[in-house]
């Protein structure tokens, strides 16, 4: 392979990216060396198995991916603002919408939510760590290496360009001969390993690691939503694993699952992809629902309305989410009976979701609402999500879908549910739990600026797209003509997109600003909140709880505070040594080998993939022979910690 085929050449945007990547790397290496932080990086972060630190790393990676996906989005908006624009050519545009979609779903939304789950859920259930701390580190590092593998495609070898759904035959070898599609397959495969492990890990954590006094029906709603999410992950991700593997076999080893020849069935890919893909939608929305429930309840200063209805509606969603996948391809022509069945199940699943909306409204009703930034995001979510949900029901009607399908109407719909659902929740959760992670709040004034600009921009960007869709603008086109008459609304959308970008930048600035100027936390409970994570001191000690807390109902911490107000004195119990797991370098090394194996397969360099896989197996063997039992935190150390806080 020639060097100019290995590196992507010929585009000034890419050269710019090359330079900035090189500068960032050099800068990071220089800074780590200059401040003598290599050892700190290795022993505090790269080898950590602490769920709080892993959560923070997930979130940092997700924010970086949000930036990358956002830049892709801005490039698309720039190209589409005016008719017949020449900013991007068709191929480049295809690459950008492919990476935008894939990154936002797989490498931004999921890790952001999983990051917050990592930080919050063990604290909410009174646990000192997750059930399998080592696997938790494997989860993070395989996600991270999968994301990096996918991301380097745009400077080395070329990006995938067949859309985030990678429909064949477009994604097949004949029409996508380059390595881009291989990056998609391998990057997602490696990251998927981590997601599956997270699913098992947190399911067992929530079921088995709760403080003994916390009953299932006393768990905070966010914990419940995480539990249901994990169930969906466990049963949905293996389907993706298989689908990706089959396409990889088609592309690398000449099998005929999805090919046009020798009996292959291209439409089988769509079917398998969406068997995973639809549950995936609930994987990224249920934790968001959980966060909004916590935030609304805290800032309305009321317990959540209809706790049981909330739980049961999520259980129903978990079952139904596996029975609706065909609505993503009604137009494939599976026949009247099939389309009717999936049309009905799709409308059914809107019912439990509707129940939740009413529960939030009734929680707000007669509440003494505090309009913090986190709460503003939650309040904006409700009306915006309803718009997305109602247009979703419109799309659920199979006959009508023949009109909406493949137009901007659909684009508007899923951005309304995914941005006002998932992204608002990520921001809300970040503002809400930021003090738990970093020991200071984010600035509220900047936060509100960022909120208003982003929400205004979001609606300005995506509301016109409904009308663009009804006016016939197809999705995934890289340009359109003057005569189509779509320009004015596209200009509006681009302007909205710009505002969203500004809102995001203000958020990033806020992180820096608050790091410098925000007062440090002293209480650990800055919002007068309700659940157990707020009972931990600031900063949260690495063992989380010196004494395991007691849960006497949901809103366990609120009940504790009420008891103290009524004069109950917290009893002084002696500390006992606390058992904690040891840090390990194996997960990060194993994931590096996964990266090497994946990179080798992308380029069909067999020696490299075999080397990588041997490395993976070797690290597994090392782990199998490792009988490290962790260590005990001594009573003196606990006393020291508890004194300072």
């Amino acid at each position, binding site marked *: 392979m020639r060097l100019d085929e290995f590196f992507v050449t010929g585009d000034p945007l890419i050269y710019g990216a090359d330079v900035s990547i090189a500068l960032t790397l050099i800068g990071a290496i220089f800074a780590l060396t200059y401040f003598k932080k290599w050892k700190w990086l290795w022993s505090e972060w790269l080898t950590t198995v602490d769920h709080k630190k892993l959560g923070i790393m997930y979130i940092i990676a997700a924010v970086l991916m949000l930036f990358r996906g956002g830049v892709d989005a801005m490039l698309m908006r720039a190209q589409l603002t005016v008719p017949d624009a020449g900013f991007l050519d068709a191929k480049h545009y295809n690459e950008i919408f492919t990476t935008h979609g894939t990154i936002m779903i797989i490498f931004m939304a999921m890790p952001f939510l999983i990051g917050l789950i990592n930080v919050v859920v063990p604290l909410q259930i009174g646990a000192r760590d997750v059930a399998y701390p080592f696997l938790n580190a494997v989860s993070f590092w395989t996600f991270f290496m999968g994301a990096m593998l996918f991301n380097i495609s745009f400077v080395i070898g070329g990006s995938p360009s067949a859309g985030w759904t990678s429909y064949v035959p477009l994604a097949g070898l004949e029409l996508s001969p380059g390595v881009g599609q291989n990056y998609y397959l391998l990057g997602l495969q490696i990251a998927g390993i981590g997601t599956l492990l997270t699913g*098992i890990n947190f399911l*067992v954590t929530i079921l088995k690691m709760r403080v003994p006094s916390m009953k299932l029906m006393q768990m905070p709603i966010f914990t419940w939503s995480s539990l249901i999410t994990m169930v969906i992950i466990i*049963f949905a991700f293996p389907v993706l694993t298989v689908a990706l593997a089959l396409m990889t076999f*088609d592309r690398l080893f000449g099998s005929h699952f999805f090919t046009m020849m020798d*009996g292959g069935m291209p439409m*089988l890919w769509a079917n398998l992809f969406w068997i995973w893909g639809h549950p995936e939608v609930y994987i990224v929305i249920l934790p968001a629902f959980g966060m909004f429930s916590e935030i609304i309840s805290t800032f309305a200063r009321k317990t959540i309305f209809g706790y049981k209805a909330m739980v049961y509606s999520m259980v129903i969603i978990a079952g139904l989410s596996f029975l609706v996948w065909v609505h993503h391809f009604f137009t494939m022509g599976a026949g009247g009976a099939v389309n009717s069945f999936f049309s009905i199940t799709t409308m059914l699943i809107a019912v439990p979701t509707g129940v939740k909306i009413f529960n939030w409204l009734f929680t707000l009703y007669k509440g003494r609402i505090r309009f913090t930034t986190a709460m503003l995001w939650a309040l904006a979510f409700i009306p915006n999500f309803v718009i997305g949900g109602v247009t979703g029901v419109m799309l659920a009607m199979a006959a009508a879908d023949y009109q909406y399908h493949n137009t901007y109407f659909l684009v508007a719909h899923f951005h309304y549910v995914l941005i006002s659902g998932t992204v608002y929740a990520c921001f809300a959760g970040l503002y809400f739990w930021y003090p738990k992670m970093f020991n200071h709040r984010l600035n509220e004034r900047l936060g509100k600026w960022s909120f208003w600009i982003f929400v205004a921009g979001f609606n300005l960007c995506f509301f016109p797209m409904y009308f663009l869709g009804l006016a016939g603008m197809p999705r995934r086109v890289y340009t359109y003509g003057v005569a189509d008459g779509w320009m004015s609304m596209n200009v509006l959308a681009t302007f909205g997109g710009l505002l969203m970008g500004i809102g995001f930048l203000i958020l990033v600035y806020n992180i820096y600003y608050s790091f410098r100027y925000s007062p440090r936390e002293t209480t650990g409970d800055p919002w007068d909140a309700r659940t157990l994570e707020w009972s931990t001191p600031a900063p949260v000690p690495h063992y989380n709880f010196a004494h395991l807390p007691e849960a006497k109902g949901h809103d366990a911490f609120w009940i504790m505070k009420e008891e103290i107000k009524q004069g109950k004195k917290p009893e002084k119990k002696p500390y006992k040594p606390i058992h904690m797991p040891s840090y390990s370098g194996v997960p990060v090394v194993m994931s590096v080998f996964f990266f090497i194996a994946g990179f080798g397969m992308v380029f069909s360099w067999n020696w490299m993939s075999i080397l990588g896989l041997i490395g993976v197996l070797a690290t597994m*063997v090392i782990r199998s022979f490792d*009988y490290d039992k962790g260590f005990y935190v001594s009573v003196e150390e606990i006393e020291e910690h508890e004194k300072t806080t």
Partner: protein
Amino acid sequence: MEAVEHSPNTPLEYQTETGRLNILGFWIFLGAEIALFSTLFATYLVLVGRTADGPGPAELFEISGVLIETFLLLTSSFTCGLAIHYMRNHSLKGVFVWIGITLALGLGFLGFEIYEFVHYIHEGAALTTSAYWSAFFVLVGTHGAHVTLGIGWIILILIQLKQRGLTPDTSRKVFISSLYWHFLDVVWIFIFTAVYLYGMVM
């Protein structure tokens, strides 16, 4: 590990918190494996009959070979269960003997499967021949890869058993690997039914 209440009769593998958590986690992993194999079965069943110009299954499948494979794996599942029985009677020797037999049967199964695959390829049915054979080789091959991995894994555990004897940690590992081994036989039951029986009767 924190001291946990358990009766003296509780098997070693359930005596520690780690033991119980890992066994439960592995059951959940098996749930994910069921989803994985269902997807492969779904793919296979959709692609049945799509043999393009290549041979069909009825021409190539031979009942004797399939039955030998089936009974080797079924018996290995039985002997693996016996190994756990001996483990719970604290007989290290029993564990070694019966796991040894299990591994031998597993290797025998693999040998016959490899022979079968090679035979098909000679008869002009390979991964690249048609959609049907792609699905066949990937479904049955994924199972075979699981068996191979299982054999390697169990050998590692035997080494640890040799080094450390029966402890809560090693028994946990033996028990979990036994769950895995039984599960592979469960999958084979469905391969036997949906692939071989269906393919020959069709």
